[in-house]
């Protein structure tokens, strides 16, 4: 399972209106329900917000990785949102978030879930990648930057486990 394969170009969203953490997750839920008919926007939203209640998925440096399992999700899927204005995400470093990488996985794919999460975290941990994503000024450029970062990360191999 590669990240590229679960992140088609139309799911890299550019200039997404921010507002609040809740609004951003709502926006994504509505979008993904339209994009993937088997999903229900209300369910996606409540799962994502339920995960946030356990502790924010804002991992610092303006990045958040909301993630959830979903019964109606047939295969893992990813979406990326670059917000127009950073929003307060209650992140570990307290900084507002403008780069949001969302992951949804089927209920049974628990190991894949963790592996994908680790991979996304690895990619978003790179300062240069974040900077390039922030400097992208079109949807196309955003997507290309993202895919390039994913490939670069995959080539470098996962970092040695500590």
């Amino acid at each position, binding site marked *: 399972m590669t990240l590229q394969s679960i992140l088609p170009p139309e799911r890299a969203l550019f200039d997404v209106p921010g507002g609040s953490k809740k609004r951003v997750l709502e926006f994504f839920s509505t979008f993904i329900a339209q994009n993937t008919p088997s999903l229900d926007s209300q369910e996606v939203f409540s799962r994502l917000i*339920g995960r946030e209640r*356990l502790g924010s998925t804002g991992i610092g*440096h303006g990045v958040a990785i909301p993630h959830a399992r979903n019964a109606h999700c047939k295969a893992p899927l990813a979406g990326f949102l670059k917000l127009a204005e950073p929003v307060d995400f209650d992140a570990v470093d307290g*900084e507002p978030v403008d780069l949001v990488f969302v992951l949804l996985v089927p209920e*049974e794919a628990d190991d894949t879930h963790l592996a994908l999460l680790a991979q996304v975290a690895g990619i978003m941990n790179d*300062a240069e990648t974040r900077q390039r994503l922030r400097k992208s000024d079109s949807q196309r450029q955003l997507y290309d930057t993202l895919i390039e970062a994913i490939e670069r990360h995959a080539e470098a191999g996962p970092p040695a486990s500590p």
Partner: protein
Amino acid sequence: MDSINSLFLLSGLLLALSILASRLSSLVGLPLLLIFLGLGMLAGEEGVLGIQFDDYGLAFLIGHLALAMILLDGGLRTRLKTFRVGFKPALSLATLGVFITSLVVGGIAMWVFELSLVQGLLVGAIVGSTDAAAVFSMLSGRGVNLNERVGATLEIESGTNDPMAIFLTLMLVEVLVGEIGGPVDTLLFLIKQFGLGLVIGIGIGWLSARLLRWVDLAPGLYSLLALALGFLVFGLTAFLGGSGFLAIYLAGLMIGNQPGRHLNFILPVHDGLAWLSQIGLFLVLGLLVTPSEMLHYALPALGVALALIFVARPLAVLLAIKPFFKFRWREVGFISWVGLRGAVPIVLAIFPVIGGVENASLYFNVAFAVVLMSLVIQGGSLSYMARWMKVEVPLGVTPNRRGPLGILPENDYEMFVYRVENQDLDEVPIRLLRFPSGAVISALFRQHAMLHPKGSTLLKQGDVLCVIGRSEDLPVLNRLFNGEARLKRQQAFFGTFTLDGDALMQDVAAAYGLTLSPGEEGMTLGEFVSLRVGGHPVVGDDVGWHGIHWVVSEMAGNKITKVGLRLYQ
């Protein structure tokens, strides 16, 4: 007059050299105390300066003074809240541990030097106590931050184990010179040593703390008053037959844990005094030894040292800790390795000389050689061992400098100085910083010039900011200024995601598809991890469960408030 002048000249020269040589320690990685000892030996009778010094009485006095000041400072710096995890194991190490160490080393010394049982045990007792002051100056100098369980245990152990070693040494010396009464007397002696030390140290220490907080003095006088009260406690306790060393440590503990602005005046001075004591003590001890005489004992002493490091200490730690407390194996391993011997054994080795024990020079030289060996072997490898044994917890950013403003004595504002290292703060206007509400940026320095920070001022990397705020604001500020490299190290350790300790296990399990056993659904995540860790959890503890490392990343008292999720990759 000449002798006074030469005293000034020599002490000034040696002190200055020692202090400058401390820079060498951080560059080369040689334990500092070793450098001081070496300088003393170089200045001594067989070194370059050829100073004749064999006044054991004076060295004994200096030893007591210096140890008292070092212990006072150690007490001042020990936070009472670390007693939560460290007190009981440390107490076990300080009593049972010292006893076992002395016994094992004594047995080996008896065999190596062909001594009688009591003589052998005396060697064991002399080298029985650790000197973690040495450990801590080394570890903090290297930027190694131990987890609280290990750090607190070592710290409290070093403050409390000297009385036991002193007691054993005194007792054995008295047996050897034939002044000992029956076993009842011995037991009474032990009870008096510990009991009086405990009662007077805590009692008068507490009163002293109140006095220091209450009295209004010129800033420079607080530290002197603290020192005077410490000496008073030491003297009174020892006069009545208690352990002055234990008492002064406890007095320091009492004073250091009474918050107030007086501490800001006391701590820096006592830091300096502790340094002076360390340097002075080791210089004097270096002067006192006759290297050629020590060489005579070098080989057998090496055997004793190796036995202490590789057999006696590990065995003592194992028996004193593992059956009673939930320590990980690697933590037991590290504590075993950090049985660093310092000044105490050498000072204790003067007891037989003063007491007039036959063949006293043996004890002194063996103790000296053992301490040297311990400093080289254990001291030299400390930070490497801390990494290897994984007892480190990565440290986030803290202010480069902080100091009280001294305007509101009861709840004072402080100035914190931060450097902008965080790439994400580059080009960010100040008004967008998520600042704690009570704190302000009072000045911004860029390229050696001061700017007036406004809301629209854009931050640049390398800017130095003076922030005025209260100590409660620190966590938020530290988070804000945490640089890329540090955050990465912290994430590699604590994991990318952080969950609240209050989160319910059933919700956590649902989010990640984990199976719980009955009885676990009702728990919070904090309780669950606490249970799995066992005993008192500390920041950095981790539990492997369902392919995830659950790492304790924040605690409030005994409660886990944040848990990191480190994913296997």
